[in-house]
Every structure is written in structure tokens, then in C-alpha cells.
């Protein structure tokens, strides 16, 4: 009897096994090498992107220092003496990255900076990263003309007596409110595209009431009137030239009858000042919308009437009829709950009413009704808080009632409309006033009535002086 021994592996199985094993191990090795290489390449790209971003920040820093230092061409960007600066045509790092910035002009006021970082670290490890950004000189201060010598560019003179009082601009159209008591239409629309010859459009429009305030939000014009039941009226002024009562979107009936005196807007908020009244509030805050909606937010019962309003942040300054507080300070920081700021306001000598108010730098400028030996112009300092503090006020005896005040763009002057014959428009220097010097810098003589209101267009650097019969367009020389 023979026992068969364990036969050895067949050769074929051994060969197959060895081959498969080799393939598996080989594939592991190859994939490891590929993965390693790919990871290195990815790291190169991340490093390149980081370096390019740094260079981009350098270009922005150079632009921030001086827009004029941007010159066309290829530059390197590096830190020199603690500041970013152009350096040669490229920057090379020790680990083999090369970065250059290509500056080119896209238009007269736009530059394009293309930052390219390249590297070549061997086979399969070369590449580049490109970042580009457009740069403008948005940081530049917009200069203002010389208002020490204003000139008339044009004027519209009405045949009647519209008693123009307030104005707002929308594009090439100027909306001007006036007093209807003298037979005027209450609200007028002018095409001011040709400054030398403003033309009234929508001539058939009649507001049917006097206009006490105007505010524009988008295509919605908010009009404060002396209508007893529709004090606030909102018009869609998408097409100013065809304005009609059919464009009226909504109205709002203020408590009382025709008590609204003044209006001022800040963002979506509309503030309305009202007459002194024993029953109703003297200050209202509304929320407006781009669709023309008006929603009462809050109100404040106070003693005096608010003849003019000026908004600064969360504070509203009011020219007041209160005999002991011609300037009132209203805190509107809490939505829906306007309240008098601590201290309430400021009392000036005599009892003449406040008639105009504006904020200017660290000051608040108040205009008053005129009387003998009364200063019609007062400057208050609010540098340390919203309520005026010493050493203010600085006062100036203009000699006539100040009807409107508005600050300029550069923070140098305030403009005023007054009853002063021969000086219906005034350019006042608060700096001179603080020094106790005569603050009148320039004036303009209106041949068509007293100065009743004005609008300073900060974008166009223009004054629209409103008088009994005319709208003047004044410009700096």
C-alpha cells in the first residue's frame, strides 16, 4: 500500500500568485507616488495663491497711499522701509516663486492689477496663479468750488407769486414747493438740465395746498402740505414731466388740522415737525418705503412748534418757537420713541423763534426771526455730545430773519437764505464766527424777492436759491 505524498504547489499557481502580488504591490507603489506628487503640486498651488494674495494686498496698499503712483507696466511688489512699494519687475522668493504685477488702464479712472505668481519645482510641479482686481480712486476727496465768489448760472422767474420755500432734486429735475396762499400751485417741477435756462414742466399740476416740506426716496416724493386732512402726500415721480394728481400714491392725515411745519429725512425715516398745539404732538417720526408707504413710528409732545429740522445720526435738531428753547434736541435713537435729549435744548436771548437749522461739522447752526438787537444767527458746539456745550453759542447779528440754512460739502461754509434785501443769499464762515470775526464771506442779491429757502446739491456743488418769485441756480466761481 502506498500513500501519496502532499504534492507541491503547482507551478502555475505559484506564478499566478507571484504575478498578482507584484501587480498589487506595484499599483500601491505607483498610486503612492502619484498621490505624493499630486499633494506636492497642490501645496505648490496653495502657496502660490497665498503669495499672489499678499502681492495683491501690496498693490492695494500702494493705491491707498497714492492713486497716482499706479503706473502702467509690470512691477514687483515688496515691503521696503516698512511700506509696500513697487520693486523691479518681479519678486522672487527663496523657495522658487516668482510674482509680478501687471498694471493696465481700463479707462481714465480705472486701473486693472493682474498679479501672476509662477513656479517650477520640477516635473509635474510647475504652474501659475493669476489674480486680478480693478482699482479706482474712490478715496479721493471731491473738491468744492470757490463759494467765496458765487455766480448765477440761471434762474426761473415766475409771473405770479409762488413764494418758493423748499426743494429737492431728482436727476435733471427740481421739485420746488411753495405757498398756495398767494395763488401759487404749491408744487412745481423744473427741468434744470440746462442750468442757464431752467424750464418749468408739468405746468398744469396744482397741489391744491401750500408745500411745507419735501423729501425724496427713490421715485417717491413725500410732500408735507397745509391740507387739513392730507398733510402728507406721496407722489410717484418716475416721470416728473407728466406729474399729475393721478400720480399720488397715498396720503396721511396728521393729528389736528394742517399743523405740519417742517420735514427732514434720513434713510427710510421721515421726521415731521408741527405747530405748537395743546392737544397734539409737535414731532412725528415715520417709516417710509420705496413703494411710497408711510407708517407712523412715534411722536413727541413738546412745548414749541418745530419750524425747521436737521438730522444728524440719531439726533434731530429743531428750530423751535419755544421762548426759552429756540433750539431743541430730540433723540431718535430708539425706534418709535422719540424723546428730548438730556438738557432738551438751548435758550437764546430774547424770545424770537428759531426759523432755520442745520448741522455743520461739530456744530449746529440756528437761524432766528429778526428783531432789533437780536442775533439772528447762532452757532452751537456739539463736539462733545449731541446737546450743545460751552463755549458756544457764537452769535451774529445779521439784521434780518434767516429763513433757511444748509452746510456746504467741504465743511467750510454754511449757506443761508434771508430777508436781507441785497443779501438774500449769504455764505457764512463758522470758523470766522468762532473767532468772533464778521462771518459773512459772500452774498448774492436777488431781484425777485426775499430769500425764502435754499437747497445745496452736494453732488453738483450748486445752490438753488428760492425766493418769492424765482428759483436761482448759483455756482461757485
Amino acid at each position, binding site marked *: *500500500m502506498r500513500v501519496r505524498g502532499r504534492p507541491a504547489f*503547482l507551478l502555475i499557481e505559484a506564478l499566478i500568485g507571484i504575478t498578482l502580488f507584484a501587480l*498589487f*504591490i506595484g*499599483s500601491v507603489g505607483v498610486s503612492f507616488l502619484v498621490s505624493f506628487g499630486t499633494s506636492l503640486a497642490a501645496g505648490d498651488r496653495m502657496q502660490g495663491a497665498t503669495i499672489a494674495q499678499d502681492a495683491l494686498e501690496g498693490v492695494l496698499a500702494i493705491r491707498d497711499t497714492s492713486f497716482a503712483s499706479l503706473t502702467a507696466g509690470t512691477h514687483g511688489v515688496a515691503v521696503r522701509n516698512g511700506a509696500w512699494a513697487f520693486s523691479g519687475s518681479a519678486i522672487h522668493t527663496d523657495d522658487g516663486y516668482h510674482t509680478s504685477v501687471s498694471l493696465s488702464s481700463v479707462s481714465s479712472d480705472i486701473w486693472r492689477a493682474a498679479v501672476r505668481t509662477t513656479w517650477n519645482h520640477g516635473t509635474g510641479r510647475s504652474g501659475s496663479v493669476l489674480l486680478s482686481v*480693478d482699482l479706482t480712486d*474712490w478715496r479721493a476727496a471731491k*473738491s468744492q468750488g470757490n463759494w467765496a465768489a458765487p455766480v448765477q448760472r440761471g434762474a426761473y422767474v415766475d409771473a405770479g407769486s409762488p413764494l418758493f420755500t423748499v426743494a429737492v432734486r431728482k436727476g435733471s429735475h427740481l421739485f420746488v414747493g411753495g405757498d398756495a396762499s398767494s395763488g401759487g400751485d404749491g408744487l412745481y417741477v423744473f427741468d434744470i438740465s440746462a442750468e442757464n435756462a431752467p424750464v418749468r414742466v408739468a405746468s398744469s399740476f396744482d397741489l391744491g395746498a401750500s408745500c411745507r416740506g419735501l423729501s425724496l426716496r427713490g421715485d417717491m416724493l413725500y410732500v408735507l402740505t397745509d391740507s387739513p386732512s392730507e398733510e402728507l402726500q406721496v407722489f410717484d415721480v418716475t416721470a416728473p414731466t407728466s406729474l399729475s394728481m393721478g400720480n399720488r400714491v397715498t396720503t396721511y392725515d396728521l393729528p389736528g388740522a394742517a399743523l405740519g411745519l417742517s420735514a427732514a429725512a434720513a434713510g427710510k425715516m421721515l421726521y415731521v415737525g408741527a405747530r405748537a398745539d395743546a392737544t397734539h404732538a409737535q414731532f412725528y417720526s415715520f417709516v417710509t418705503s420705496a413703494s411710497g408707504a408711510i407708517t407712523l413710528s412715534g411722536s413727541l409732545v413738546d412745548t414749541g412748534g418745530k419750524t425747521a429740522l436737521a438730522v444728524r445720526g440719531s439726533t434731530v435738531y429743531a428750530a423751535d418757537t419755544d421762548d426759552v428753547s429756540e433750539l431743541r434736541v430730540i433723540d431718535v435713537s430708539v425706534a418709535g420713541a422719540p424723546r428730548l435729549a438730556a438738557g432738551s435744548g438751548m435758550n437764546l436771548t430774547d424770545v424770537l423763534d428759531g426759523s432755520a437749522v442745520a448741522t455743520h461739522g461739530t456744530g449746529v447752526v440756528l437761524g432766528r426771526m429778526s428783531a432789533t438787537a437780536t442775533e439772528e444767527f447762532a452757532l452751537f458746539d456739539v463736539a462733545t455730545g449731541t446737546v450743545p456745550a460751552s463755549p458756544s453759542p457764537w452769535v451774529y447779528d445779521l439784521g434780518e430773519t434767516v429763513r433757511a440754512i444748509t452746510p456746504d460739502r467741504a465743511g467750510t461754509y454754511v449757506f443761508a437764505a434771508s430777508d436781507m434785501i441785497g443779501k438774500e443769499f449769504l455764505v457764512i464762515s463758522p470758523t470766522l464766527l468762532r473767532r468772533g470775526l464778521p462771518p459773512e464771506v459772500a452774498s448774492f442779491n436777488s431781484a425777485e424777492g426775499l430769500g425764502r429757502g435754499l437747497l445745496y446739491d452736494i*453732488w453738483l456743488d450748486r445752490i438753488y436759491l428760492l425766493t418769492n418769485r424765482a428759483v436761482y441756480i448759483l455756482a461757485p466761481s
Partner: protein
Amino acid sequence: MIRSSSRPGYAFLVTVLLIGAIATTVVASLLLLAIGTSKSSLSIQQSALALAHARSCAERALATLRTDGTSTGDFSLTLTDGTCRVLAIGGEGNETRTLCTEGTVGQVTRKLEIEIASVLPTIVIRSWREVAAFSLCP
């Protein structure tokens, strides 16, 4: 006569196949890791470019606003390997305006939200932030 049954070679092959399965798993992991790393680096590059595009739109919108206070924004630009968009500029007049821009490169979008305290005489920025979602702009 006694026959002994044996399955020659099979144990070896099974072992080899088992090793192969493990090796295949390792290969797949390494390759997925490589793909992920590569995609991450590309995303980082695209992200940097998207932020630059958002900045470009912000620069242009600020320059336009400085010139024309009634500028409404709401425009798009086609830039290098991507686009940027300016949303409708918020606010009215010279003070308290909001500007939102976003830059897009591939699937990556980055957003900037800018609060402007005042426009003239000099643009004063109250805040300039990158955000995941706009909160100040409609």
C-alpha cells in the same frame, strides 16, 4: 489504497487575493486623497480670485457713487475667469449707504458687505466685511 485530498495552490492564491483586496483599498484611498487635495488647492485659488472680483465690483461701485449720489448699483461685470455683481445700493443721499458685492469663480462665491457713513466730500467707510450671507442689503 488511501487517497488524500488536497487542494494544492489554493491557499496561496486566496492569500494573494486577500492581499490584493487590501492593496486595492489602499490605492483607492491614496487616489481619493490626491484628488481631494488637488480640488482643495483649486478651490483656494478660485476663492482668492472670487474675493478679488468682489473687490473689483466694490471699487467700481464706490467710484460711481462718489460721482453720482443717485447711483443704484445693480449691475454685473465679466472679469478674468469669473464675474462679479453689485446689488442695489441701499440708502439715500450722502449718508448711511450700504453696498453689497459678490464675486464668482467656478462654484466659489465670496461676498462683501460695506457700510458707508458718508459719501462726500470723502467716502467714509463704517465697516467693510466679508460675509457668508448679506444682512444689510435686500
